[in-house]
């Protein structure tokens, strides 16, 4: 229970730091760290497949994509004169939201006071994904194809 709350706090902390960081590169690194915290949380809540996907795709691939994009954009292009006070106020807003939520949402949150139920051993994610949620697989393939086509159209070479 203690490790669970610690991981939740780390997830929130890294997310807030990703928003507040002045340098874009540090934001991407903090986002990767938040993904690692979420991975550990998923693993702790009996969801190893989702944890592996989160670690390899969100903490790995998306961080690499972010860093590549940041390196492709020039420093002066990525600099935008935004008031930093907005970002520095985020922890204050979150603290106030936390107090409001724990005060007024207490009776709603109390409805979820049950422990995590471990999944039955014979129930596999592959079985559900391939047999019960086949349309999801088709949707994922369509998304991939659409993404590839869009990126290809962005960076296509024009014929002379």
């Amino acid at each position, binding site marked *: 229970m203690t490790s669970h709350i610690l991981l*939740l706090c780390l997830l929130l902390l890294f997310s807030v730091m990703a928003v507040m960081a002045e340098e874009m590169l540090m934001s991407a690194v903090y986002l990767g760290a938040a993904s690692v915290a979420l991975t550990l949380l998923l693993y702790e809540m009996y969801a190893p497949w989702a944890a592996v996907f989160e670690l390899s795709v969100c903490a790995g691939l998306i961080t690499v994509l972010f860093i590549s994009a940041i390196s492709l954009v020039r420093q002066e292009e990525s600099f935008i004169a935004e008031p930093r006070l907005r970002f520095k106020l985020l922890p204050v807003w979150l603290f106030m939201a936390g107090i409001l939520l724990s005060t007024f949402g207490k009776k709603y949150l109390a409805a979820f006071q049950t422990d995590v139920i471990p999944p039955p051993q014979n129930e596999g994610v592959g079985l559900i994904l391939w047999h019960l949620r086949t349309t999801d697989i088709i949707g994922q393939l369509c998304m991939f194809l659409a993404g590839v086509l869009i990126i290809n159209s962005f960076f296509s070479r024009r014929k002379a």
Partner: protein
Amino acid sequence: MPAINLFFTALLFLTGLYCMLVSRNMLRLLIGMEILSKSCILAFISFGSQIGQTSTAQSIIITIIVVEVVVIGVGLALMVKTSSATGTIDIWKLNKLKD
């Protein structure tokens, strides 16, 4: 345990939403969207584990992650293309799309 998960889900959602509302930087918008999707993943797994349907929640999370990576990839490609065309990634300066 799901109550504390939902509490942190709400705070994470607020963080992502705040980032998307406040910032003008295209990259920060994508970071906010990523944080929003993380909060959704946390909500899915906490509800799934509460009703004993962790495997179904995991299969939905895998779908969310796939959609997320495609959206982030397209968003970053759009950002790189925009910065090379206009010289900035400020969304307030993207008012000449018709030209």
